[in-house]
């Protein structure tokens, strides 16, 4: 069975301007109980965290533990 790509909106957003992944920070990636966050490289070569997998319990350690306040957790669309 071949796979399709179905779009989904994600509840965790990162403010790239505040994110310090470029300095080696991975706090949000480390604390997520569902392990859904990752670090990616932006077009200008700097790094930022992002939500790679839409598997969120909207529990908030990523937002609470982020040292620069770059992470915002919202309620997933299906239940908000």
């Amino acid at each position, binding site marked *: *069975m*071949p*796979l399709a790509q179905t779009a989904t909106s994600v509840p965790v957003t990162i403010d790239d301007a505040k994110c310090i992944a470029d300095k080696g920070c991975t706090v949000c990636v*480390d*604390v*997520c*109980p*569902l*392990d859904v966050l*990752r670090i990616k490289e932006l077009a200008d070569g700097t790094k930022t965290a992002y939500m*790679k*997998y839409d*598997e*969120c*319990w*909207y*529990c*908030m*350690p990523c937002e*609470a*533990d982020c040292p620069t306040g770059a992470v915002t*957790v*919202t*309620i*997933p669309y*299906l*239940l*908000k």
Partner: protein
Amino acid sequence: MDEILDGLTQIDCDILVIGGGTAGPMAALKAKKKNPGANVVLLDKANVKRSGAISMGMDGLNNSVIPGYATPEQYTKEITIANDGIVDQKPVYRYAEECYGIIKELDSFGIRFQKDQNGEYDVKKVHHIGTYVLPMPNGDTVKKALYRQLRKARISVVNRYMATRLLTGEGRVAGAVCVNTRTAEFLVIRAKAVIMGLGAAGRLGLPTSGYLYGTYENPSNSGEGYAMAYHAGAGLANLECYQINPLIKDYNGPACAYVAGPMGGYTSNAQGERFIECDYWSGQMMQEFYDELQSGKGPVFLKLNHLAEETVAEIEKVLHIVERPTRGHFHAGRGTDYRKQMIEMHISEIGFCSGHSASGVFVDEHARTTIPGLYAAGDMANVPHNYMLGAFTHGAFAGEDAADFMGEVDFAEFDLADVEAERARVLAPTKRDDGIPPNQIEYKTRRLVNDYLQPPKVTAKMELAQKRFAEVREDMEQGMHVRDAHELMRSLEAASILDCADMAAAASLYRTESRWGLYHNRVEYARDDENWFCHTLLTKGADGRPAHEKREVQPYVVDIAEDEKDAYYKQRVDASVAAE
């Protein structure tokens, strides 16, 4: 990250603790304290800093037995009555005797409990009979405080490894096979004793929102503990006694009547009328809740809008900071203000969780399972209505007993072929070029759980469920496909969820009576004390399918008088009272 790598490492330890949420850290600490020379490994598929049911914290102790407020006898009696008498009292009584010591220990870790002007614990009454609820104003610090203790005690913490199967040999536990959730590399851990604290089966039913992770429980608690215990040959008790919880509709988090109740909030119907006398959860309370939802008086609400501004503000402060802090975002998004509107409630999808209910891996008062050297504590062990303090306290029992056990034995020999067979099972979905992704296997399993297993339970529906589950299992074993290590973790979770679904159906069919209110409401059968005043024990049969036996309820430590037995059945507010 997430690329699938080939690799296998083996390490040895004296005590392996699987699960770093609540019970696990306490078990590790107590084992190390009792035997400082022991090599204790604490393993978690997430990060111990923020793993488990209390990832963000907890708003209070729901079952504290504090001298001056409650006695072990009274608590044991209350829990026995709330569970229709099907309780081995020894583990409950031991908990009730020793949990106060654990509270003081948690206090010394820096976790604060509410005190009154005289410096006494400010315990509240929520249960039908006794007084056990102790608020935790800074409950958001629990995980951080625990982590500090783990570092101090030099516990070896292994994060992002998921245990997939237990190893056994010589009639006892020998270790576990684990896989890295970001690289798919294997880790075989030999251990003299293994303590399981893997939490609830929280991803069994599908939430009404349809969002796979919008569960009541932390969705990382996907039932691996039950599945691993089953495949290792341990007994699981009373799995037909599901967990079903009252919750905030759609948000699916706790409504927290335990927090709001002592301050004047209560559960009401659409007319704003109280319909249950007591908001403490039991099967019968859930039945009344369900009946009200189905009736013309539904839906059901948490009512706070009659309270004074200062009271509402205080409730808000607790509920929007501790345990599930996105609750505030949710209400804001819908324009719900506790001062003006009532909060719509519903009931949760089904799950297994002794924290609120009563089923799980069978344990005695030392947290020993039916396999020597293997322990279980917290939401996955069968001590009823355990909540967070039960997880801590029984985790302590497990750690202390395991510290003794490991001193008497060497590593048990196991069959290397078991490791190879497990590697082949785990990696099968990585060997296919395409197929069915784990999220579809999981969605279908959980949708079928809702269609056919949710109470009220009907024999023909549950038999259909078994047929459909067998088809999904065939698809999973022959056609599941994963693209990276993260999806591999999800595929293993999907397999555990399917195992739990099979066990839920089999256990529910075996007990041919109704018991525990809504939890095991079998519409074709009435309660039958003559034949079913017993535990049911589920094990893996010789044919690889669930096998069942009855197990006697152990003689009571605390007697229950004939006129006390039905206290929890008198839940519904009398019509004449409700009208006043």
